[in-house]
Every structure is written in structure tokens, then in C-alpha cells.
């Protein structure tokens, strides 16, 4: 028994852990994974396996390389230096022999040195054998930095897989996964250091890099020819204020037989996952609430301006990746601000950018772009000079004014689409 000194506090909250938090996200994602496989069959299995495998594999290989480079080689170097020294002495003896031609002395010296070298090599071999289990081992099956144990890379992999449309070739998914893990996670310093949402980056990477090859083919309405423009959001892009006749709100809500990314179809299951994470307090419920709320308010404003039905805001909320992105991607704590007001501003920004891209833009990946754009603003939102833990009267007033201005801008914009 030893008495140790530690600084206060001497207690830790028993059930607070990163592992639990990430595991909860995996559990919340499971119904979506099963539903994706049910809806899209083998396509979904291949895409998910490619997404998870590429991300987990990249991280694993990266850390194996880092460990290999950083491993302890001092003893090796020492013995190798010794052998090099002996070899040098042999060289010197050779040079001396060429000068004085003393065969006997030369043989004796070389023999002695060769014995020394043999001894050193034996030593090295013995050291290698003795330390296979410990520091000298070149290959650790379980890498201490590898973040599979806390599910963080698994979460990224599953989320990325679920955002990919069903007819995407698995090689594209693998390229996206490898690129995102390397460029966004590993280069920035691993878990907790990334600026961009890994899954979001991967999704945007394949959207921009492979364009038309990232497509939807299953469950498309019969009258269309199979282009990406045939999803609900696609038809909204071509005819912004005409109700898509092929799918009802219920189709979008349940997600059964609905075209799109393999995991984003069912609003019902996404909400169930969100409810689970909310009960377990494993995500910040304010982010999806404000995000979806912002899109709802803005689309309602457009609805009033255009004098169309309630289908319009409903379609915006239940179609595409909005709910999925709001619940699973925008809540990734590493890439969002840390304060409550900061998270509210962040989620509001997400809503505005998403809606603006949907209303005026061409890409169907509005949610992913919004998340990546807002990720860049996180350091600014968290900046020490103005980041505050609580809303003050002044900040609330300014924020309300910004909301009103945004609604006004969208109103004016909608009348000019």
C-alpha cells in the first residue's frame, strides 16, 4: 500500500466516457444499417463494407507505420555501430598489410576482429529473440493509438457508408474513405484534432471528384430515365415550387422504397436513433433541433411567399440527407463549437446554408456542404474574445435580428428564383 498525492477533484463521473458516447452512436445507427440492407440488398452491404473497411483500414495502417517509425531502435543502432567499427578496423589492417606485407599479423588481426563481429551479431540476434514480445517487436496486432476501441473511426465509416447513393461503385467509396481518413483525420493529428467532419468530407470528396458516378438507381420512379435528377430533391431543383407527384410525405417519412442515399431514406428510424441518443445524453439535441427548425422556418417563409401548400416545408425536412445530417453528422462533437450559444449559431448557419444551396444551387449534397462550410467557422465561433457560455441579452437581440434578416433575404430571393 502506498499513499499517493493527486489534485482535486478526487472523483470522476462513473458513466461518462467517450467509448459509451461513440458506442451509443453506433447503436443508434444500427436500425438504419439494417434498413439500408433491406432496401438495397447487396449494394448496401458492399458500400457499407467499403466505407467502413477503407476508413478503419487506413487508420490502422497509418498507426502501424507511425509505430514502426517511432519504435525503439537504440540497442540495434548500438550493435550496428559496433560492427561498423570492427569493419573499419579490418579496413585499417588491410591498409597496413598493403604497406608492410606482414601476412601473419594481418591474419591474426582479421581473425580477431571477425570473431568480435560474430559475437556482436550473436548479441543482436539474442537481443532480437529476447525482445520479440516487447519493444523490439515490429508488428503489434493491437495498436495502442488505433481508435477502433472507442468506436470513433467505426462511427465515421458507418455514417459515410449510409450517405452514399446506392449505385455508387465500391472503388469510389474506398477512395473517399481513404482520402478522408488521411487528409482530415490522420494529418491533423488523429482523434479529436480534425477540423472537418470525416464522413462529410468523404461524401463531398466523392461527390466533387466523381460527380455523375455517385448516383441513385434503385426505386426511381418509372417515368424517369434513371438520372440523379429524379429524386425528390432533384425534381425540386428543376421545378422548385411544384409538388413532386411521385412520392407522398409518408413515403419520405418511412423511407420504404424511396430513392436516395442508402441510409438517409427513413426519417422514422433516424428519429428513433436520435431519441435513443437523446435519452442516453450522447449528443447535443440542440444542434439538430435548431438545424431542422431553421430549414423549417425558412421553407415556411418561401411557402407563404409562393402561396403553396405545407408539402413544401415537409418535403424539405424529410427528403435528402437533412435529418440524417442533422442527427448524426452535425452533432459530431469534435467538429462543432463547445458552447451552447456557439452550437445554436452553428446549427442556424447549417440550416441557412443548406436551404440556400437547395433553393438556388444545383448540388443535391447541400447538407454535406453546409456541414463542411460551418466546420470552418467553428474556430471563429469559439474564439476567446467573444465566445460566451450563456446567451446574454445583447447576443440574443443581435441573433434575433440576424434571423429576421435571413428570413427577409430568403423571401426576396424566393420571389426571384
Amino acid at each position, binding site marked *: 500500500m502506498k499513499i499517493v498525492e*493527486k489534485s482535486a*477533484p478526487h*472523483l470522476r*463521473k462513473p458513466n461518462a466516457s467517450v467509448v459509451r*458516447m461513440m458506442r451509443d452512436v453506433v447503436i443508434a445507427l444500427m436500425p438504419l444499417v439494417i434498413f439500408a440492407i433491406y432496401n438495397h440488398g447487396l449494394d448496401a452491404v458492399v458500400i457499407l463494407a467499403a466505407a467502413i473497411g477503407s476508413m478503419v483500414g487506413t487508420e490502422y495502417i497509418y498507426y502501424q507505420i507511425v509505430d514502426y517509425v517511432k519504435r525503439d531502435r537504440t540497442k540495434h543502432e548500438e550493435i550496428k555501430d559496433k560492427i561498423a567499427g570492427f569493419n573499419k578496423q579490418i579496413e585499417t589492417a588491410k591498409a597496413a598489410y598493403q604497406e608492410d606485407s606482414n601476412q601473419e599479423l594481418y591474419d591474426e588481426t582479421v581473425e580477431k576482429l571477425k570473431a568480435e563481429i560474430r559475437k556482436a551479431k550473436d548479441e543482436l540476434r539474442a537481443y532480437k529473440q529476447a525482445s520479440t514480445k516487447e519493444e523490439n517487436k515490429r508488428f503489434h496486432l493491437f495498436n495502442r493509438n488505433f481508435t477502433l476501441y472507442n468506436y470513433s473511426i467505426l462511427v465515421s465509416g458507418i455514417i459515410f457508408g449510409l450517405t452514399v447513393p446506392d449505385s455508387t461503385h465500391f472503388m469510389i467509396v474506398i477512395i473517399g474513405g481513404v482520402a478522408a481518413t488521411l487528409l482530415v483525420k490522420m494529418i491533423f493529428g488523429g482523434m479529436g484534432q480534425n477540423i472537418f467532419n470525416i464522413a462529410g468530407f468523404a461524401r463531398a470528396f466523392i461527390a466533387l471528384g466523381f460527380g455523375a458516378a455517385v448516383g441513385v438507381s434503385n426505386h426511381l420512379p418509372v417515368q424517369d430515365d434513371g438520372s440523379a435528377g429524379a429524386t425528390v430533391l432533384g425534381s425540386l431543383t428543376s421545378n422548385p415550387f411544384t409538388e413532386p407527384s411521385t412520392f407522398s410525405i409518408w413515403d419520405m417519412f418511412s423511407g420504404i422504397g424511396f430513392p436516395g442515399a442508402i441510409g438517409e431514406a427513413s426519417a422514422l428510424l433516424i428519429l428513433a436513433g436520435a431519441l435513443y441518443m437523446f435519452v442516453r445524453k450522447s449528443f447535443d439535441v440542440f444542434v439538430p433541433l435548431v438545424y431542422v427548425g431553421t430549414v423549417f422556418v425558412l421553407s415556411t417563409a418561401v411557402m407563404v411567399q409562393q402561396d403553396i401548400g405545407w408539402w413544401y416545408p415537409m418535403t424539405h425536412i424529410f427528403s435528402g440527407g437533412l435529418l440524417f445530417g442533422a442527427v448524426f453528422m452535425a452533432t459530431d*462533437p469534435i467538429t462543432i463549437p463547445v458552447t451552447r450559444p456557439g452550437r445554436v449559431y452553428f446549427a442556424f448557419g447549417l440550416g441557412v446554408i443548406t436551404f440556400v444551396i437547395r433553393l438556388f444551387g444545383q448540388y443535391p449534397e447541400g447538407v454535406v456542404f453546409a456541414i463542411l462550410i460551418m466546420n470552418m467557422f467553428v474556430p471563429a465561433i469559439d474564439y476567446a474574445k467573444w465566445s460566451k457560455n450563456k446567451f446574454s441579452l445583447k447576443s440574443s437581440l443581435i441573433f434575433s435580428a440576424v434571423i429576421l434578416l435571413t428570413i427577409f433575404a430568403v423571401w426576396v430571393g424566393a420571389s426571384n428564383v
Partner: protein
Amino acid sequence: MIAKTKRVSDYKQLNKELPTLRYVDPEYVYINLTTNRCEEYRLDVKKGDYVKLGQILGERDGCFFKQPIYATVSGHIEDKVTKIDGTGIEVECITIRNDFQDTYDETITDRPENVIEHLTQKEMVDIVKEKALVGLGGSGFPTYIKLATEEKIDTVVINAIECEPYLSSDYRLIKDQPDEIFNGLKYIMQAVNAKQGIIAVKKTKKELIEVLENEQKRFQDLNIKIAKLGDYYPQGWEIETFKNATGIKVPIGDLPMKHGLLGFNVSTTESIYEAIKHNLPVTKRFVTVNGDGVKFPQSIRTRVGTSVKDLIKLSDGFVEDAGNIEIVIGGPMMGSSVKNDDVIITPTTTSVLVFKSVDYKEEPCVRCGSCVYSCPVDITPVSIMNAVKRNDKEAIKDLSANKCIECGLCAYVCTSKIHVTDYVRKGKSLIG
């Protein structure tokens, strides 16, 4: 997890209802001559002298106040030794060998009620100053400075919250000596001429409320209220107690006196009663011995100057398979851990906690925001931590790290088990 945490797991049920052990007669007591506030001292007695209980042994000398040193038992003076006090620093102590007679010094005489009735604020302050009373909640701030306030005080708040888990010394005190507490409050109200007195207690402590309400009947003529406050941490933080008991929000850094408020810990109130009524310094106090590293957790009424070794022995010692243990003097959230068990009980020692030491696996921060949501002073511990890591003093200042009260909640709630409080503490010291 990613939500405001207000509760800290409370294991007090362990020993709350056990009878309080009376261990008032250790063979040796060690009276500290120095404290963390006073490094100089003068000693008037020498080895072999016979001293009586309540006799002045000398004087501690702080930078701006002097404090008499009192004997807490009667007996013979022995050697000077070095021990550790509750804050973890080494202090010089004088040993007294107890003669178990409790012979009181001649100055220890009761003041009759009719004399007390006519005491002025100045006279009371002099008594309190002479008896070297300090804040017994753990702060050790000299009580007479508070009592000598010249601001107009409307309300005196007695803090009986004891919001940290594991502790039950104030709990035992209220149950055993409610009369002393009410009388102490009466004297304080008389001294500062306050209109109202409030005893703040947790609303979940039904037994205490019962005891206090019963006692209240004897003090009908005084305007004393019992405020039942929510059971959360850090409810016992002075500013939080004021806010919930009176509705007055004292800004951090302001003296509560300016807002007409005066706060005392419940043990301090009791000690004020003892000083004014019986002319006694603090000689005994309740100490909780608790935690998973000690075999028999219990509350002990003990003599000031007792060695913690004795108290742990009384609690059947440490558990056998403990591995590394931590000894914490004070609460588990804010108390300080000491390097060995050679610690003495000073008037400000509320508890001795023995924990099996757990080494948590620290993971990278995932910025979940639990610390930000839970912070009672509304600062952002995680941002301060990052600023400390890159040694950015300006950012630490902008994030107002100096507001931190070191309650420990940020480290308590951390999902990555990072010692956030340590970083914030470091940040505070960086900006001075």
C-alpha cells in the same frame, strides 16, 4: 453526458446514521504553530510546562493579523514536531501530552445572558478575534474581519448546505447541537444588527429540517427563516447559496457585505456561540472519516490537534487490498490530497477521506462540451485548457479563467477523463 451535470454521486448513506464516535481524549495532541496564512509565530511555553485547556500558548503572526494559539487539552508540553495540516503543507507543531483532566484555564468562564445582551459589535469582534476563530467550512478566513463589517447588513445567512459528497460533519453538528447554532446566529445578528437570519439547508435533508424547525420554535421573537435549497453541487458555494436563499445575485469578486449579506458556515456559527457564551476557542469538532479505502467509515467528534493516524486506527485502518490510496483532507471535489497520513486535525478540517486511487485512462478531448455545460461560473474550461496548452495568456484572460472557483466539476464530468480542473488552475496562475 453532453448535458449540465449538477449532481455528484453521494455515498453519505454509508455512515450518516451511525452514532458519532466520541474520541475527545487522544494521548497526544499536536497544535500547529504555523498555518498557510501565518508563517511566523511566538511560543510562550517551553518543554515540560503544564498547560490548561484554553490557555494561550503563543501567537501566530500572519502578514496582516495576529492569532493566539490555544491549548485544546490540559497536560504537559513536549517536543516540537513537523506535521502536515489539512492544506497539505508542512507545519510546525507543539506536542501536548494529555493528562485527561480537562482542567480549564481561569479565563474560560461563562458569560451570563444579561451581559451578552449588552455586548456591542466591537466587543463581540474582540472576543472572536481573541479566540482566533476562522471560517470552519474550510476557508480558514478570519471570522472577526467578517464580523467587523461596517456595511449595513440586512441578512445573515448560515450555510448548512455541505454540498460535497461523502461529508457529514455539518450534518452531525446540526443534529446534535441545533441550540448552539441558533444562539450563535442570534449573537451574529445582534453584532451586525441584522433584521433577518436565514439557515440554508438542503431540502432533501428531511431530518435536519425537522430538527431545525423544532428548534425554531424557541426563537420565535427573532426573524429566522429556514431556506430549503435544491440538492446539487455546488449549492454550498457562498454566491450560489446567497442567490437561492435570498434571491440576491452577488457578482463574482464582489464582497457580499456590499449587498447587505453576511455568510457564515454552520460550524463557524457554533464556534462563535462557544466563544461568546463560554469564552472557549475551538477545541473540538466533528470529522468525517469516509471513503472506500477505510474499513469502517464513521463520524468522529474529536479534539482539535488529534493525529489523523489515530482516527484511521479508530476506523479499523485501511482496507487490505487497497493498492495505492489517496488521503484527502476536505471534500472529494475540492479537498487536498496529502503525501502521508501524518496529518493533524486543525479547526478547519472537516473530513478525512481515504480513497483507493484509480488511474483513469485519459483519451483525447472530443470537445463534447460537458465541462462547458456544467460549469457553475459559466466559463469554458475546454477552451481554457487549450489556451493553457499553447500558453496563450491573452486568451486565458479573455476566457476569464480567474472566475474559476475550482469546484472540480469540469474534471468530474469529463468524458475523456482529462483533468480539466488542473489545466484551469494552471491558467489561473499563469494570468496571476
